[in-house]
């Protein structure tokens, strides 16, 4: 704001600041409210802990088992991130290929759709036969489940370059490679980061599915063991830890997105950038 802004503008700015504070606090308030409601419902209706444990009971279980929870969460995080990074590399390459060539698109797309429709839980036993139980099946399941959104989004970003812009560059003698490098890829970046947010959360789904089928560590494995002992509070503790990891990774993806492709979300966060003339 310029220094000579009138008082009313200051009042507006103060109101905007209050609103921003509320926006920042809101997620925490909603989470707190959910846990409180949950706690009240369990106590009020006298629900047994082996059906639905109250948050306080889950917290107790977390405190008791924090060591195995942390160790298994770490294992899950490693496999998930490994699978996710594979998906990013592969998804980018395939997305570029599909987005820039109609032939590749026509040839590969039906296969990809079919592949993506296969429930990944059904693939895990095959992966176990190939690689043995443990790390690799979890990494590969996370990879298989998360690469598809990346491919689709990168391909969309590249394939939807404005025809006029393509004409401008082609008329200058630009090769297809130039057009992809100068326009297609930068243009696909917002799509790419949007897909990363989806991909990282489903990658957790993939690795945990695999861990519940065949693994000897990881949050999925921990929840499987806990449920076989009817330790329902620990199962829920595992679920909550997974959720927290998902939110953390999502937040990292969003932060990178804001740093690199701020131009695509213009105007939403800074009204000063809007100009006339």
């Amino acid at each position, binding site marked *: 704001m310029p220094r000579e802004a009138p008082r009313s503008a200051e009042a507006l700015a103060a109101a905007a600041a209050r609103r921003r504070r509320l926006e920042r606090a809101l997620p925490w308030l909603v989470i707190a409210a959910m846990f409180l409601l949950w706690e009240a419902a369990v106590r009020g209706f006298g629900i047994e802990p082996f059906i639905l444990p109250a948050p306080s009971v889950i917290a107790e279980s977390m405190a008791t088992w924090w060591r195995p929870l942390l160790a298994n969460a770490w294992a899950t995080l490693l496999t998930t991130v490994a699978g996710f990074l594979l998906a990013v590399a592969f998804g980018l390459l395939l997305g570029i290929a599909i987005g820039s060539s109609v032939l590749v698109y026509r040839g590969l797309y039906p296969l990809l759709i079919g592949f993506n429709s296969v429930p990944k839980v059904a693939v895990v036993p095959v992966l176990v036969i190939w690689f043995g139980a443990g790390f690799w099946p979890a990494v590969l399941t996370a990879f298989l489940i998360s690469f598809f959104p990346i491919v689709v989004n990168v391909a969309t970003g590249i394939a939807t370059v*404005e025809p*006029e*812009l393509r*004409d*401008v*560059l*082609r*008329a*200058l*003698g*630009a090769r297809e490679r*130039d057009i992809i490098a*100068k*326009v297609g890829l*930068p*243009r696909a*970046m917002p799509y790419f980061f949007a897909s990363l947010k989806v991909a990282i959360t489903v990658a957790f789904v993939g690795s945990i599915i695999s861990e519940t089928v065949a693994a000897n560590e990881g949050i999925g494995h921990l929840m499987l063991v806990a449920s076989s002992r009817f330790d329902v509070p620990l199962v829920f503790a595992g679920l909550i830890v997974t959720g927290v990891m998902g939110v953390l990774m999502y937040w990292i993806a969003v932060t990178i997105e804001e740093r690199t*492709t701020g*131009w*695509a979300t*213009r*105007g939403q966060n800074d009204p000063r*950038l*809007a*100009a*006339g*003339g």
Partner: protein
Amino acid sequence: MATPFVRIDGVAMRYGGAEGTLALQGASLAVEEGEFVAVVGPSGCGKSTLMRLVTGLWPPTEGHVAVAGREVTGPLAIAGMAFQNPTLLPWRTILANVMLPLEVVEPHRRALRARRAEYERKARDLLRLVGLEGFEAKFPWQLSGGMQQRASLCRALVHDPRLLMLDEPFGALDVFTREDLWDVLQEVWLARRPTVILVTHDLKEAVYLADRVLIMSARPGRIIAERSVPHPRPRRLELTYEPEFQAIVHELRDRISEARRAEPADAA
């Protein structure tokens, strides 16, 4: 006897195979080097197709296109293009947008690394010429539509094209901005004298800017008439209110109405 700079001879263009839409048929025109020509016609008459043929983006179905004495067989690097949509890249600053052609077109592409300062000065000079000094570091979405179109014009000019192809560049702008940009374009043309082919549906714009106005028939399009505009340059906006000027605009309007009546209105 010099051959014209741009020569189109009996060109036909059909989209989508033998049964496809016939956009142009028997179209012929000639443009001298340094001339400013406007092409007007009813909507859907294939004006934009003509542009893409001249720049070599598409080969004609029939006939010949020659630019600078050579048959056009592929994209022409000596042409600059601007469209109704400014199509600036939102992740690049205005200066970087204007310099985009230099990163693509030979021989500048090879020289860019070594002579970046010189090229940058050139881009800045152009931006000053169209009144965008001080906006070099801004992003396109921080500029108004008219300013974006000015930048788009700079991008079309930065590699010193001998041929400037403009496809309704001011079509999406309000009247005042449009008239401002007419003068900007005139100034640029007077300063650098490229050959200009301006496709437009605004008759006033065509008469104000061009040395010669070509009229196209309804689809399939061909050139059915032409009218030269004798007024000396630089022309001023007051000119558009003079009876002599308006008489030319009316004459063109009548010719286009005839063209539209002559063809059944089935061109979709």
